[in-house]
């Protein structure tokens, strides 16, 4: 087996990876790369689960790693990529309430606040400095950053990605703090897949009907400007 200190070091490095991916999801305007970054974030989570497995040896962690890999690294990104091909939207430049810069600043402040709040809650207990404490802070932060994506972006597809990123935060929190029963984790993932499939159907469907609608508008000279493709 690998030495514990090394594993802990690896996990810390992976934490940094998660923060970077989350920051990227919040701030980028390029839609195509958001999906790859989401896949990368999920892969990082898989690595963390594996590393934790090597520390604790719990079979549930291994199962989580497998399920996460199949669903969040392969299936969901695949579906979203399909949607993006269909709707031909490459860039997401419309924001609500928060611009990318302010989102980044706020998420930094957020992490500080959560760190301080959790530190006050666990004051005096041995978990204070442990890996699990950082895992919890990071999990909650990731969840809230995902939430920020859901309300600061206007495009539905980015909202979905924000929601997926929120779920990653929950998974991270679950892995480190509470012992989420595997069945619940599994059900959440099934929900996610259904959500993404629904989004696929809806966006592809809405897009096609929208085109029909536009054609009709053109026919009756009600719509002068050409269809906007951004």
């Amino acid at each position, binding site marked *: 087996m690998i030495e514990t200190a090394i594993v802990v070091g690896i996990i810390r490095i992976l934490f940094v990876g998660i923060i970077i991916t989350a920051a990227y999801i919040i701030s980028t305007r390029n839609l195509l790369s958001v999906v790859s970054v989401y896949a990368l974030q999920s892969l990082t989570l898989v690595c963390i689960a594996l590393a934790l497995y090597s520390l604790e040896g719990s079979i549930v962690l291994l199962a989580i790693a497998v399920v996460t890999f199949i669903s969040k690294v392969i299936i969901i990104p695949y579906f979203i990529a399909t949607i993006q091909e269909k709707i031909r939207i490459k860039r997401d430049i419309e924001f*609500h*309430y928060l611009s990318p810069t302010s989102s980044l600043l706020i998420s930094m402040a957020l992490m500080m*606040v959560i760190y*301080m709040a959790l530190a*006050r*809650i666990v004051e005096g207990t041995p978990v204070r400095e442990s890996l699990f404490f950082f895992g919890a802070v990071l999990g909650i932060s990731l969840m809230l950053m995902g*939430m920020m994506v*859901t*309300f600061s972006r*206007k495009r539905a597809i980015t909202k979905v990605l924000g929601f997926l990123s929120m779920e990653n935060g929950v998974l991270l929190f679950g892995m480190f703090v509470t012992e989420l029963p595997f069945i619940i984790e599994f059900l959440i993932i099934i929900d996610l897949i259904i959500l993404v499939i629904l989004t696929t159907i809806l966006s592809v469907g809405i897009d096609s009907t929208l085109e029909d609608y536009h054609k009709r508008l053109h026919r009756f000279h009600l719509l002068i400007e050409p269809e906007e493709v951004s």
Partner: protein
Amino acid sequence: MIVELFIPAIIVLLAGTIFPILTASLDRRSVRTISLSCTIVGSILLVSLSLLILLYGEPVYFTLFQPLPAFSLSFVIDRLAAFFLLIIAVVSSCVALYFTEYIEHIAGSNRRNLLCGCTNLFILAMVLVVASANTISFFLFWEVMAASSFFLVMYEYSQQNTAKAGIYYFVMTQLSSLFILLGIIILYLTTGSFDFLPLTTTASAPLITVAFLALFLGFSIKAGIIPFHKWLPYAHPASPSPVSALMSGVMLKIAVYGLVRFLLDVFTPDLWWGVLILAAGTASAVLGVIYALKEHDVKGMLAYSSIENIGIIFTGIGLSVIFTASNLPLLATLSLLGALFHSLNHAMFKSLLFLTAGSVVSATRTRNIEHMGGLAPRMPVTSALFFIGAVSIIALPPLNGFASELLIFISFISSVSVVDPLFKILLFICLSLFALTSALSAACFVKAFGSIFLALPRSPESAAAKEVPLTMLIGPGILAAACILLGVCALQIFATVGFTVPLPDMLLVSLLLLGMSVLTYVVLYFTASREVRVSETWGCGTLSQQASAEYSGHGFSEPLDIIFSAIYRTRTINERIFFDQKNCIFKEGTGEIRLLKVFEEYLYRPIAQQSLKVAEGVSRFQNGCLDTYLLYVFVTVIALIIFLGWFA
């Protein structure tokens, strides 16, 4: 025995509610007659039940349904409840008798079935409110009563006035329910029970005072105490006349019942509570009758007169509270008896007046008394019945209005020698205002009777009016008989139920009056000349006398208008449009002097506008955008985290 009468009465009324609603698609007279017969049967059962309790009975307590340990649908019928049940039942049966014919003459085809069902539900709810043994079922049935009466008011929903009346009524009645619920919750918090139990803590505890004020406000709004009266003059003209009779005759009394029930059974009142009730009552009595004088819509006038009479009842209750707090139990009982007796009397004569007014309105197709006139020869029985109601309401002996107002007067006058000097002044002021009220209400009904029934008809409809069918006369006839009976035998009735009151024996007085009139008639019959002269009344020398030259209702009330011109505030509206920009060449303009609706313009509208502003501010949070709601969730989560970290 009592329960055996009560449960069938409830079932019959319930059947009368459900049957016409189930058969709403059948526009048949039989459906409506069956439903209204249910009302009559149920009412007769209730009358016998309440008479049994009033004369002999001990209070009866029973539980119908108990879904939760702390909450049950329980009923208690003591003498107070039985008294109000009697009011409900008598008025309801007469109204139902009248309604069987009246409902066939109004528009609305199928909706008339629903009107029957709703009327029965309304009566049922009032019965259950009065019989409720705990505050929860009291409130529950109170809400049923409010909702069903709202539907009754909205019967002619397509008319613009009705929509306005409906909104006014709905808002005010829900406000009343809100305050009552608040009072009930506060009482529950202090006692831990929903029963009508005497409070052990003293009345001056702030929470108890708040509870009293909330309940007082709630009942005042429902009873139409000024300044919460505005729904009455809108709702009554808008709803069908029998519904007005029920609402004014009975529903307002339910509010009185609520107030009396809470004051007697729950609170130990403070002195200033009594002063508050007395002041509210006196103000309503005086202002109500002053506004009634100015009103030319017959049902609107009756509505304002209801405000006046409720004011008189509240005056009696207020006096009773003051006397209880100053340890004068005899006087307290006397004034409370006066208030309760006036409730009964007002129920009788006001529903009589509303029913006869309904007959008049359906015969002349107008509510404006200036367009009536000359109905006495055309509708002799209706005019006689209206006359009895009018004489009762202006408290002429020997009719019932006199008996109850006299009781309140007696308690006023005999109290003056026993209370503090400061209270003496207050009581004297209230007494003089109360006396003024009686005089003004006499003027008001002289005007109403004169304009509606006497002289020549002032409109073709009025000239073509015919007497209503017999079935529309029986109901009011019973009420008129009750008015006479309650007045003439007032002393005997009080003696039967076990109270000695310092009333004169009206039986003797009325026998004397009757004897005098018979004697006068006989003397005149034998002494006067038999020569018949046919001539016109002298009409200032005009050649042909026309109805338009008559002394109108406006003309009659003009002197009083001038006396009370400080109260009748007017607003002058003068709008002019000019041809040029410098306002030199006049193009057209409108000028109008109209009565200022003081309460509506200075109290209701500002409050409504403020609430609209607040509502607009709140609705900005609710903008229908998903992102905003997510932002709210986000902010809430952050706030929770901060709260957990630093304050928990």
